[in-house]
């Protein structure tokens, strides 16, 4: 037996011992085909999934390399069934190809006739295909390109898309690298995407995904449609593009509930596109409004289902997806793979943190004990009310005050789920409050003030979860969340991880992330979920009692 850093388990998980001298090489070798599942301090867990293996195939790795990598780094015998499974899974990708036929247009071709016959017999697929040209080629209705890929993936025979892309309407876009430069991993990400044609770039929150998007646009040099989660995020994209590229205010349009501009670069929100009136999507025209050469999907893991359907019709256009995590709470990772494209670039949080591009974080869970009266009302409450009761206990407000006192002078966000609680906190702390009801203009003003340091404390609801760039935030206090969602945790932590400028002592900031939790309630159970997520991401995580906090021990 060799003494490698990797242990291959029969349940297809790979355990990587990080302190092993070969660990770095091994990580690099397995990253293309294995999904990082958890990265706590000593042993990282990767998982082999069909999607991961197909991602690797799409990136040009073959089964032999994968098997060889596993054997090279594995400490123990590798289960044979697993190797066979890897080879078989990988062999499934690319048996079918979507191609552009010189005379017939889009066709589905295969070198394996049996596979072609099998998929032709599938009911779901037959409607998408036209006449059989010869034994190995079938016509495909161009409008079904995306649906077909989706359906083939479900059948387990993902098709490789060689049909190419339309160039779209050319539009000059350049990066304006004045006083800043593209970081290495950002450049790699943009290039990997461009060479792959379409696909998803996975970077941690705060790693500058917007800039990767801008770099991709500069590669495409064509009109671009950018889809973002909400209006505030749209504004930030616009500001960032103005700052980082040669684009001017007139060239960038915003397409949202209030403004409907269509310009060479148009930023639209998911919400406006998925608005349905009388059973139709009135804003679908946006996709045909121009001959787009590139479509950017921000926060791909949140992409709503209708946009998948619309994207299915856009397969001839280049698509780039940006996200911090491929994990979707709705399990539609397969649709991201088939419709947006395979993963083209991935960098673990810790790596980028180690390079100093995102701030290290100190995560602490503070447990408060409910007073007896509250415990009684909690115990007798309806199950659906319990979480709210536990999460909104007034005890938390004292803890928040203690924490604020500890971090006096540091820009702090207080994040919560329940408006009442937030309003109460805002009143107690005399801090401005941002919720979904706050106007966009007001939000902008408050965020700007926070960024500039005028305001040192903001109380925000979940509107602040996504795509809001608050590089100056150093402390976040989470008082309630949406039922222990891991994704939310990632986003909230992400608010903190944008590295500010080094302080006067040259030290980079260390972010502090507090979660205040009511002991012995569902709140604590949900917190366990989040705790696990953070620990799996490799963040030091501590649990302390509220009493210790007030006693000044940390």
């Amino acid at each position: 037996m060799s003494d490698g850093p990797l242990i291959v388990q029969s349940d297809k998980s790979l355990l990587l011992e990080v302190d092993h001298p070969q660990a770095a090489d091994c990580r690099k070798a397995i990253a293309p085909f294995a999904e990082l599942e958890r990265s706590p301090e000593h042993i990282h867990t990767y998982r082999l999934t069909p999607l991961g293996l197909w991602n690797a195939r799409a990136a040009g790795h073959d089964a032999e390399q994968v098997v060889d990598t596993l054997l090279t780094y594995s400490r123990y015998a590798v289960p044979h069934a697993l190797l066979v499974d890897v080879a078989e899974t990988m062999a499934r990708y690319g048996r079918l190809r979507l191609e552009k036929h010189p005379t017939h247009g889009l066709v589905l071709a295969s070198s394996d006739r049996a596979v072609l016959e099998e998929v032709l017999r599938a009911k779901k697929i037959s409607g998408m295909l036209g006449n059989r040209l010869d034994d190995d080629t079938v016509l495909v209705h161009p409008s079904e390109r995306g649906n077909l890929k989706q359906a083939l993936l479900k059948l387990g025979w993902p098709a490789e898309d060689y049909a190419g892309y339309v160039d779209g309407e050319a539009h000059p876009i350049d990066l304006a690298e004045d006083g800043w430069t593209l970081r290495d991993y950002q450049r790699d990400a943009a290039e990997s995407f461009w060479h792959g044609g379409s696909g998803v770039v996975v970077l941690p929150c705060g790693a500058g995904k917007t800039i990767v998007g801008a770099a991709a646009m500069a590669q495409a040099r064509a009109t671009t449609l950018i889809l973002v989660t909400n209006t505030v995020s749209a504004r930030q994209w616009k500001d960032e593009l103005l700052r980082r590229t040669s684009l001017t205010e007139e060239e960038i349009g915003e397409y949202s509930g209030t403004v409907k501009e269509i310009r060479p670069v148009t930023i639209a929100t998911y919400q406006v596109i998925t608005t349905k009136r009388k059973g139709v999507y009135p804003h679908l025209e946006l996709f045909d409004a121009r001959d787009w050469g590139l479509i950017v999907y921000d926060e791909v893991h949140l992409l709503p289902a209708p946009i998948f359907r619309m994207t299915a019709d856009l397969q001839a256009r280049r698509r780039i997806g940006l996200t911090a995590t491929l994990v979707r709470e709705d399990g539609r990772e397969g649709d991201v793979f088939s419709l947006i494209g395979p993963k083209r670039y991935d960098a673990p949080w810790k790596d980028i943190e180690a390079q100093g591009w995102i701030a290290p974080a100190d995560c602490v869970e503070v447990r408060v004990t409910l007073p007896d009266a509250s415990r009684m009302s909690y115990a007798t409450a309806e199950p659906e009310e319990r979480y709210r009761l536990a999460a909104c206990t007034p005890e938390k407000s004292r803890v928040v005050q203690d924490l604020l006192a500890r971090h006096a002078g540091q820009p702090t966000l207080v994040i919560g789920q329940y408006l009442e609680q937030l309003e109460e906190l805002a009143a107690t702390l005399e801090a401005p409050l941002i919720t979904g009801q706050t106007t966009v203009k007001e939000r902008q003003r408050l965020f700007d003030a926070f960024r500039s340091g005028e305001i040192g404390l903001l109380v925000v609801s979940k509107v602040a979860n996504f795509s809001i760039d608050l590089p100056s935030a150093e402390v976040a206090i989470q008082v309630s969340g949406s039922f222990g969602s891991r994704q939310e945790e990632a986003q909230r932590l992400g608010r903190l991880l944008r590295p500010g400028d080094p302080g006067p002592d040259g030290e980079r900031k260390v972010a502090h992330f507090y979660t205040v939790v009511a002991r012995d309630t569902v709140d604590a159970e949900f917190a366990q979920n989040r705790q696990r997520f953070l620990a799996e991401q490799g963040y030091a995580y501590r649990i302390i009692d509220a009493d210790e906090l007030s006693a000044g021990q940390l």
Partner: protein
Amino acid sequence: MGTLCCVGEGAGGYRSLADQLRSWPDDRLHRLLTQRSDLATPAPHDFSQLASRAAVRNSIARALDGLTRGELCVLDALVVAGQTTPAELVELTWADPAFVTTTLHRLLDLALAWESPEGLRALTGVGDALTGGSEGGASGLRPRSVERRSRADIDAALDVLEPGARALLEHVVDEGGAAKPGAARLGLRPEDAETPAEVLLAHRLLVPGGSLQPGLLVVPGEVGLALRDGRTTTAPIDHEPVLVAEPRSPRLALSAAVGAAADVVRRVENLLDWWATRPAAALRTTGLGVRELRAAAVHLQVDEAEAALLIEVTSAAGLIATRADAEGNQVWVPTEDFDRWRERPPAERWSELARAWLASPRLPGLVGERGPDQKPWNALSPELSAAGMPEAKAMTLAALAGLPPGEGLASGTGLPSLIARITWQRPRRPRTRPDLVAWAVAEAARLGITGTDVLTDYGRTLATGDDPAPLLATHLPAPVDHVLLQADLTAVAPGPLESDLARRLHQVADVESRGAATVFRFTTESIRRALDAGWTAAELHAFVLAASRTPVPQPLSYLIDDVVRGFGRLRVGVAHAFLRSEDESALAALESHPKASSLGLQRIAPTVLVSSVPIDVLLPRLRELGAAPVVEGPDGQIRVGVAEGLRARAPRTRDSADPARVAARHAAHLVSVISGLRDGEEVARSRPASASAPGGGVLSALREAIERRGAVLIGFTDHQGVINERAVVPLRVEGGQLAARDRDAERDDPDADRTYAVHRISRVVPL
């Protein structure tokens, strides 16, 4: 070879098979009795009986079952020849002379042939037992006639045959040498013959079958030989099919095999642990139902075929058995042997399973398939076995062991070539051989005996009957004595754990991922379970600290404390009905509890209370009072907690699974048989020459005469109750009847063949 030379020189031979056996040295007898073990049980009195037994049809058939096709062909040639010399036998067979001589030696050793004064002979029953066509080594030729025409004479007759007649003759020879006469007339001269059959009859190339095949025409052996150019077969007989093999990466092969072997041990333990607490319901036929099999497969995360194999092997190793559960239903649970098994190192555990598999006639490959009644076969059902399976497994491993190291069966063509070879080696049994061999190959791979179809070095040891454990142990990773604790509340054991550590970890944490390494997760439930099993907070903290090579993460310590916070702290002793607790105030509270007066509590130390109430009353009362007591044994150990898994008694038929013990016992038996034979001989010598002893004596004498082809005087009681004597040539003994021919009858007198009931024959005197 010395004996053969004797025969070749015409200088010797024995009067009878019994004589020949009598002359053999002990080691040769030992060999015979080892190879034809049925001759030794029950122990024969003397050599006549031994020889007689060797000539019994069933015994011959069993002996033939153990021969290769090449050996069967040589034996067949001997039958065709009638009686012959080794030199002639070499000419009659299409094979390397060395092969023929070796084979002949083996046939003599097996007492399937013997050296009569007239030459080598096969036992009389052999001809009838050689069935199965050319696959079974039978040439289809008849024995040569005693008074036969010369080869030249036959060749001359063959030369003048018209093509139609020759084709007919060849057809008859190929189809077994016998034909129905139909309308053909007998006794014509060649010039009067009209049909091809009549021509052949006229040329005496086809002759009436006589009393042995009444109503049939047969081709005499010498004619068949002449047709085949003097040989019994039309193709060489000593070409053993070769295995199609290809080289494989040795590292990959070993790693695949060792990985599978480790998985097997792990899964068996996992399954039985599970069955100990949740026994699997047995069917009325003691089999395991489809639902239970599926549940086991899901639990083990393997497919049903693999689960069936594991369960069958576990059963073969005696690790599971049925017993009645609380409701009286039959369930499968681990046996006591399981406890002993799990204490051993992994390599030995595997070795035990693998050897049980090798000796097991079970057919897990059939599980899930439908039987003749369209019902699916169930695992562990009694009928799911085949006597030929152990042999198929042994031969498969032996064949693989014959490949050069690092070479495995070629994909695609390898398995058919293996089947062809094993079919050549044992052509007579059984018809399901291809299936059996395919299963053996698949099962060997699943158990980790082979990896990528290459037999591992420890697999070779297994195939030779030795213990593979020491070799396997060198391949298995060394057990680790620590885990790595992480902040996400997992503990990763980066390798197989030492069994003591593993057992304790299983108590305090749940397993999340199994394999070469194990990932444990600490949860509120698992910690509570540990507390239930008697752990204290301090022990838990100490244990995780000791087990971990890394600092204990703060969240884990916090979790333990958090769970302990809500857990009871009382211990209750059985022997003296005492209560003790580290918590003095809790005891004080209990003592002074208004409802505790009936318990007769008395404080004997700051942390100990005693009670006058029996423990079965005391415990519920304490619980009523809101305490959470645990029971402590006389040795101070906590007795509650881990529920003892159910155990059934191990079946005691397992001795046969230990090849070494079986072999030793068998050898001892043979030695006693041989010395018994010699003693019996002394006794026999003092008996008169006429065999009048009832039963065995008459039979032995008759069989001996059959082998000698000699005449005897038999005394028998006829239907009128009159005692008669007659000089006859015995032909065969079958079903209690002796077929014999009157000694003085004319050669073609069909009435000279008579049958006699053996039980009416009172004496047999050799003439």
